[in-house]
């Protein structure tokens, strides 16, 4: 390893990024030091096991990754804006579409939703925290470390360039030399540990820690989707873990799982990847469905239409999600019988999904619909997602898919599904629960600008791509000629992408503006909510969530209480509350994981070993840690609750 292979040089765009990273790092250190915030950062955030704070940190980083992935997208769209553009060369373009896909799925969509789950789920089921608070902190740090490792690749060593699917043998040492692909493998592996742990954590939390009286079939829909999502995570992620480990062995230690030589089976990778990868699509789609269900009921002031059918639909979708992976490679020539089977299972997914769409529509029917910004996103989801859905059915028809596969038709389809469902839901949920997280609403007027501009940009960007696909434009090409005839539609698409970029700036401005000027919440029930998270005593819930956990007697429990005139915060006698202690172990462990991961990326095995020893030392330390939390005294609860009441 020489220096010229370590720091990436010779590209003005990357140089600019390097300089801006350096400047913002220095700036952050200066601000923290100047305002004496280091201790606050350590005590209140880095070592915190409070699910709400961890959730907020997840969302913060997800937004940062949305920015990073978005910049990648804008660079790609710039390169494709006109024929024969030379803005990016092939290598750079390939690296950018690889990181765009990986970051948007693994480091944006998933953590954004996991962040919302973290904030909302314990509140929604009336729990004081998640089942395993230490593990929750560890999950967060493994995610951050995996994200960090993956992201430094573009300034140190070079980014992966084999696509987010990393098909073998293209991703092998022979065809893809250099550390780039190793970053992909180790970044995903480390963050995958955290995702798996979150899945287990959420499952146990929902099964074991619901408030008294909340039966499974009374749970809010976001809790249901989180539960099913967690099950998918627990079943699907081990497949990815094994597949990544095997490819890592291929690249670092010369095994032949997926190589060209010595009988490796490249197609085995494609199968394993999609056995994880298709359920992954539902890992990011189901929570979105849950969020829309919450918001549509709240702003229609009406209970969910067909609750049971909604639950059965998500269960059906989750089962089917494991039975469709071959539709990602109908063109592999698996034979007519196999393709027919997977065509039918794939189309079958549209049935429970369709049931959900109609149930949402009928939830609004005979309601009193108010168009606040979370509701706007939820309403916009339906038509846009339907466009993504019906083109998905078209792609499921294997014989026709031979013509759509690997084209912009496919690109457009999955953006219609992932943006209309997941990204819209992230925005909707973010705005909806913002007052719960920070104690004030985001500005509605600016929020509407953001909404309209983003949705317009989204459609301008992706709708033309269906036609580009039908006109024969394959995905992942970095250049096309005048004679191809793809200029007009590509140009429109690029304009749309920049409109979305503009919308993102409006969102960021809204966060700043609302921080400065939004009126502060006093009730804790900002939107007229129906579920328990709106029943807590103050605008920002105290770290113990509920002074006294309310008993649940009906579906939509808080709505029920309000109907019956019960105030959940009128408590005669407080009792002391047991809470978990903060911990620094996961952060330290994360640092060792970074060390180990970075060492393996560059095949510096001594560094990998040092990191591994550190990880095990942290585990040993934790095993002998007998701190099992502390009690919040009655006086402290009284004090906190009094302050919350005075704020009214």
């Amino acid at each position, binding site marked *: 390893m020489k220096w010229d*292979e370590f720091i990436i040089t010779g590209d003005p765009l990357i140089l600019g990024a390097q300089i801006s990273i350096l400047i913002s790092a220095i700036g952050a250190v200066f601000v923290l030091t100047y305002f004496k915030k280091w201790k606050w950062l350590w005590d209140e955030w880095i070592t915190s096991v409070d699910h709400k704070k961890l959730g907020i940190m997840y969302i913060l980083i997800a937004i940062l990754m949305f920015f990073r992935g978005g910049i990648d997208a804008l660079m790609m769209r710039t390169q494709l804006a006109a024929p024969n553009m030379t803005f990016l060369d*092939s290598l750079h373009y390939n690296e950018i579409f690889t990181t765009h896909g990986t970051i948007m799925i693994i480091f944006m969509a998933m953590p954004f939703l996991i962040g919302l789950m973290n904030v909302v789920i314990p509140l929604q089921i009336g729990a004081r925290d998640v089942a395993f608070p230490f593990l929750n902190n560890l999950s967060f740090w493994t995610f951050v470390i995996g994200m960090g490792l993956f992201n430094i690749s573009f300034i140190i*060593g*070079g980014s992966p*360039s084999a696509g987010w699917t990393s*098909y073998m*043998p*293209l991703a092998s*040492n*022979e*065809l*893809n030399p*250099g550390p780039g692909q190793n970053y992909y493998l180790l970044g995903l592996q480390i963050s995958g540990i955290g995702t798996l742990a979150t899945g287990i954590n959420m499952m146990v939390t929902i099964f074991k820690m619901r408030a008294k009286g909340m039966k499974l079939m009374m749970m809010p829909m976001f809790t249901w989707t989180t539960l099913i999502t967690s099950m998918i995570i627990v079943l699907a992620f081990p497949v990815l873990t094994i597949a990544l480990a095997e490819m890592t062995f291929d690249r670092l230690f010369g095994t032949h799982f997926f190589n*060209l030589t*010595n009988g490796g089976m*490249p*197609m085995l990778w494609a199968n394993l990847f999609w056995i994880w990868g298709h359920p992954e699509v539902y890992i990011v789609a189901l929570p979105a469905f849950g969020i829309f269900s919450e918001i549509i009921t709240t702003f*229609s*002031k*009406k209970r969910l*239409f*067909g609750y049971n059918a909604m639950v059965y639909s998500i269960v059906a979708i989750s089962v089917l999600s494991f039975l469709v992976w071959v539709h990602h490679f109908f*063109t*592999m*020539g698996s034979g007519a019988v196999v393709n*027919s089977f997977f065509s*039918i299972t794939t*189309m*079958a997914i*549209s049935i429970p999904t*369709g049931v959900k769409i*109609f149930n949402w*529509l*009928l939830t*609004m029917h005979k*309601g009193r*619909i108010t168009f606040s910004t979370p509701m706007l996103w939820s*309403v916009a989801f*339906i*038509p846009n997602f*339907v466009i993504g859905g*019906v083109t998905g*059915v*078209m792609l499921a*028809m*294997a*014989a*026709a898919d*031979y*013509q*759509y*596969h*690997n*084209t912009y038709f496919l690109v457009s389809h999955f953006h219609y599904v992932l943006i209309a469902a997941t990204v819209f839901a992230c925005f909707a949920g973010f705005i909806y629960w913002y007052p719960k997280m920070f104690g004030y609403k985001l500005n509605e007027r600016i929020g509407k600008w953001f909404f309209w501009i983003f949705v317009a940009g989204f459609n301008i960007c992706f709708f033309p791509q269906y*036609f580009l696909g*039908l*006109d*024969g434009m394959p*995905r992942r*090409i970095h250049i096309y000629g005048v004679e191809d005839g793809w200029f007009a539609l590509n140009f429109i698409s690029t304009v749309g992408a920049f409109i979305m970029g503009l919308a993102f700036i409006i969102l960021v401005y809204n966060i700043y503006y609302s921080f400065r000027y939004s009126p502060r919440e006093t009730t804790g029930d900002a939107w007229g909510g129906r579920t328990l998270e709106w029943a807590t005593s103050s605008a920002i819930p105290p770290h113990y969530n509920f002074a006294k956990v309310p008993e649940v007697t009906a579906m939509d429990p808080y709505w029920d209480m309000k109907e019956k005139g019960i105030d959940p915060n009128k408590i005669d006698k407080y009792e002391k509350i047991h809470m978990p202690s903060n911990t620094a172990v996961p952060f330290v462990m994360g640092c060792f994981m970074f060390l180990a991961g970075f060492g393996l990326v560059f095949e510096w095995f001594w560094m990998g070993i040092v990191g591994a020893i550190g990880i095990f030392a942290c585990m040993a330390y934790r095993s002998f840690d007998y701190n099992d939390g502390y009690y919040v005294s009655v006086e402290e609860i009284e004090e906190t609750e009094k302050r919350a009441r005075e704020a009214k």
Partner: protein
Amino acid sequence: MLKNGKSLKWLAFLALSLFLSGCGNMTVLDPKGPVAESQAWLIWFSIGFMLLIVLVVFILLTVILVKYREREDHKGYQPEIEGSHKLEIIWTIIPVIIVIILSVPTIMTIFELEEAPAATAHKEPVVVHATSVNWKWIFSYPEVGIETVNYLNIPTDRPILFKLTSADSMAALWIPQLGGQKYNMAGMETQLYLQANEVGTYAGRNANYTGEGFSEQKFDVVALEQGDFDAWVEETQSDAPELTQEEYDKLMVPGSSSEMTFSSTHLDWVDHSTDAEYAINAWERMGYEPLNPHSRAGKAYEMPALTQSDSGEIEGFESQAANE
């Protein structure tokens, strides 16, 4: 604009006609052979159904939003409706029926595409081995002992049986106007029937991402009358140079290539569908070693752009050392 119904109608008409005229020209929906035709039919068939579904949902959504938005004289608010089994059964059954209706032609077409097109099934197919190598296409006609690089001549009105394989990364042979794609994989062979019914030149390419030179991994397909095709075969057999293994190994090095023609095929010494390692071994013989593209050596290295000289030799790659 909503108030002015007339201009809205015109706008819709304009959009629709633009849309439809655009569709007619789109490659995939402009088939030139029976395979692409059956796929285009299936696509139109599904578009019809899908537009119907989209229309139903959009209308329902619009009506509900307009009728039940919060306002002064709001009517019909019923917050306690739990659901309706009757409605839910209806919108479960209808999608089931739609899925069945779509499945039948889909499955029939899937099976149909595994065979030569029915109308010409009685004719002997032309067998073409299509091998992808980073970032070129090698076509071998074993029956007549011809090999071409980056172009393909075929006769019209006869099924072409492609035997697909790859020397290295996984690629996909795609000639949109003749039919859908299928993967080329090293160490494996997949089969694909295509056919052209009209004389003409069609664009073909690799549709599956294979790295640096992927965007340019394209070829022309020239469909000729049977007589013209036979004449081309004869001319090539007598005039084109023979392909030797040393020459062939140069093609294995990642890089681009111009169109080439030979009067013998590489199938004499290697079948990539049974030997996945050939290309990697050829690199060693050629003195080629993959480089980290971000290293100084990697940045300086230029991928070979091969050409065929008049005497038939492949030029453009000596060894990596000479390149640096």
